[in-house]
């Protein structure tokens, strides 16, 4: 609690005690009035001062002014008629309690949310002649070797020079499984080194490191205002003046009408009702709870490794009806793998070994995937003459035997009839010594959670899922079928993808959002064109962070539905708060006008609604069970 808040708390306590004490003091008349001015002054002096300054600056719809008018009016009625001053002081007291609570809650949640994203490193260790010196990460040049001890944050992006360790990336990705690194691996700032000492050669200055980019994004996230926030700002702009004029009318019109009808005018009664109106006129509960809800929602999402670039995007996310996926890198791993071997007369191992030896000289992704499947060192002395037949495959001499590995064209050109494969993917046929030995199926591997992620999307209210891919139709159809995707388009060039998304944008029902999910590598134009661009696996990919509106820090497709559920929860809270705040104010205004509500009720309603709305807003922060 800051000094300012503490001072306020003391003022509130003193006033409350005085108010209770004065209740039992048996004085009356002007002495009583003067006695009550003491607590009134203690609790309200700053409001009165601000109101006065407001008048000088011609800001009459300022809530300080309204509170000042309402309470002074109530004191005047007390002095002239009822002798009740408690009400005026109490109204001021509760108003201040509300303000205090608001500052405290907002400050607290702001700190909570910043703590969630507590990834800013304080220092970097530089090794100078065996001595570690701590320097500001800002001062470390690219290419410097820094030392990160266990328990420390990695301050800058870089490559591990030496040392092995596990990294805790949860602050960045929300993923609790540690990630292992060894020399040669890239490493991003913001992770926490858990076990071993790492020496890292930096590849970026601090300002461009992942941690700076993420922090920048989070800090500026709530600046993009959503439609609901703009609605509230506009609402507040006319609400207060409207209520003030309503109050004026209430104070003047009914008594005049009564006079005309030759009833007693009852001025003080109607003025009192008007003052009650003024107490209700402060829109602060409403205005505070909406941005706070969004802020908490964005903070909660950040904790789960989902960065949302603004409240407007959070709102958009909640209305997502169609999710369009780029296949490679989002639904699939984006790396090729040996998935199967068919019609082989040899052992699986032997087949892969021959294939790996045959492809040992190539750097083609297919060759790389075969060598990876073999995974052991190759005895290159077994390989003799290598003949590459471009676009078809290779013919290699292994252990003195001719081994052919390639497509069916290669087989036929060697006079061997291959067995056609019905699986999707790239097929590598093998022949050893002129004899067909079967084929290896290589394809991009679908992420383990992809099917579950699509089902989860359906559950969270997305009614259409679409997949776009540059791959062949057979592969696309198989993946779409397996994952339960509604619609797919294959053999697309990057510009075709933009076209397809535009087509969907024109066909979508009004008020619905078409989201595009990509890995940000070559789909930046589509990410920008869609209503909402979601980039996956963005840790370390700047292009994705730049182009997307929502950034998933790791590449788990389950995060998409989680993001949508977080957004839905947050928007539900926003609407609850809007309805609650406007509803209670409206009811109080009606009751006040009818003379059924006094100032006590008005101020309780005001403060009570605000407390409820703020507490409700903070619920948006809790997202772990969504």
């Amino acid at each position, binding site marked *: 609690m800051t000094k300012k808040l503490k001072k306020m708390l003391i003022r509130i306590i003193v006033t409350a005690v005085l108010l209770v004490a004065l209740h039992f003091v048996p004085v009356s008349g002007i002495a009583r009035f003067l006695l009550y001015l003491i607590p009134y002054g203690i609790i309200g002096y700053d409001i009165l001062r*601000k109101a006065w*300054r*407001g008048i000088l*600056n011609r*800001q009459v719809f300022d*809530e300080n002014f309204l509170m000042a008018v309402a309470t002074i009016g109530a004191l005047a009625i007390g002095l002239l008629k009822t002798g009740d001053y408690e009400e005026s002081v109490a109204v001021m007291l509760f108003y201040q309690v509300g*303000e205090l609570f*608001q*500052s405290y809650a*907002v400050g607290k949640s*702001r700190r909570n949310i910043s703590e969630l994203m507590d990834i800013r490193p304080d220092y970097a260790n530089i090794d100078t002649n065996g001595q570690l010196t701590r320097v500001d990460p800002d001062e470390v040049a690219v290419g410097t070797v820094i030392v990160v001890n266990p328990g420390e944050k990695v301050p800058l992006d870089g490559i591990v020079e030496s040392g092995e360790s596990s990294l805790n990336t949860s602050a960045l990705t929300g993923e609790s499984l540690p990630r292992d690194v060894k020399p040669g691996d890239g490493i991003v700032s913001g992770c926490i080194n858990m076990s071993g000492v790492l020496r890292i050669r930096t590849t970026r200055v601090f300002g461009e490191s992942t941690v700076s980019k993420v922090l920048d994004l989070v*800090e*500026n996230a*709530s*600046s*993009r*205002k959503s439609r609901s926030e703009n609605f509230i*700002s506009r609402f*507040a*702009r006319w609400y207060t003046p409207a209520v003030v004029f309503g109050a004026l009318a209430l104070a003047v019109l009914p008594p005049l009408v009564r006079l005309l009808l030759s009833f007693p005018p009852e001025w003080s009664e109607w003025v009192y009702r008007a003052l009650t109106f003024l107490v209700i006129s*402060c*829109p*602060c509960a409403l*205005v*505070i709870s909406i*941005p*706070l809800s969004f*802020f908490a929602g964005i903070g909660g999402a950040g904790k789960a490794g989902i960065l949302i670039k603004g409240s407007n995007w959070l709102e958009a996310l909640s209305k997502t009806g169609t999710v369009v996926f780029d296949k490679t890198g989002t639904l699939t791993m984006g790396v090729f793998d040996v998935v199967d071997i068919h019609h082989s007369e040899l052992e699986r191992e032997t087949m892969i070994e021959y294939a790996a030896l045959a492809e040992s000289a190539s750097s083609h992704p297919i060759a790389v995937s075969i060598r990876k499947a073999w995974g052991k060192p190759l005895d290159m002395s077994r390989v003799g003459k290598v003949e590459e037949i471009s676009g078809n495959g290779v013919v290699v001499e292994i252990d003195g035997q001719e081994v052919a590995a390639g497509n069916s064209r290669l087989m036929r050109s060697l006079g061997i009839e291959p067995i056609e494969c019905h699986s999707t993917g790239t097929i590598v046929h093998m022949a050893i010594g002129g004899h067909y030995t079967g084929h290896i199926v290589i394809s991009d591997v679908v992420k383990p959670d992809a099917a579950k992620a699509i089902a989860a999307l359906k559950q969270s209210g997305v009614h259409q899922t679409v997949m776009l891919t540059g791959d062949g139709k057979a592969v696309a159809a198989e993946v779409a079928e397996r994952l339960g995707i509604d619609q797919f388009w294959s053999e697309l060039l990057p510009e075709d993808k933009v076209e397809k998304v535009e087509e969907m944008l024109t066909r979508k029902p009004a008020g619905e959002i078409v989201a595009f999910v990509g890995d940000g590598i070559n789909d930046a134009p589509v990410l920008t064109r869609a209503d909402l661009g979601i980039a996956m696996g963005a840790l370390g990919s700047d292009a994705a962070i730049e182009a997307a509106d929502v950034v998933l820090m790791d590449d788990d497709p389950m995060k998409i539905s989680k993001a949508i559920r977080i957004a839905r929860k947050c928007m539900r809270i926003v609407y609850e708060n809007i309805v609650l705040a406007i509803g209670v104010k409206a009811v109080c205004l009606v009751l006040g006008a009818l003379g059924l509500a006094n100032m006590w009720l008005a101020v309780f309603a005001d403060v009570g609604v605000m407390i409820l709305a703020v507490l409700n807003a903070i619920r948006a922060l809790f997202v772990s069970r969504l």
Partner: protein
Amino acid sequence: MKKTYRIEVDCANCANKMEEAAGKIPGIADVTVNFMTQKMIVDFADGADADTVMKQVVKACKKVEDDCEIYL
């Protein structure tokens, strides 16, 4: 040209009023006051001098909300 300034303001509605007041200053293309992060993000119009414009902004904001601070 976009610049971010740290501000101090106590209530959300006051932040709205500051945003409105600052938006009317010539030389400002767009301005957002972020109550939650206590920041003012100003997008200056082409050719505007940030310092002179910001002086006006401070004046205008002080007028609508006496209690606010803008750290230039």
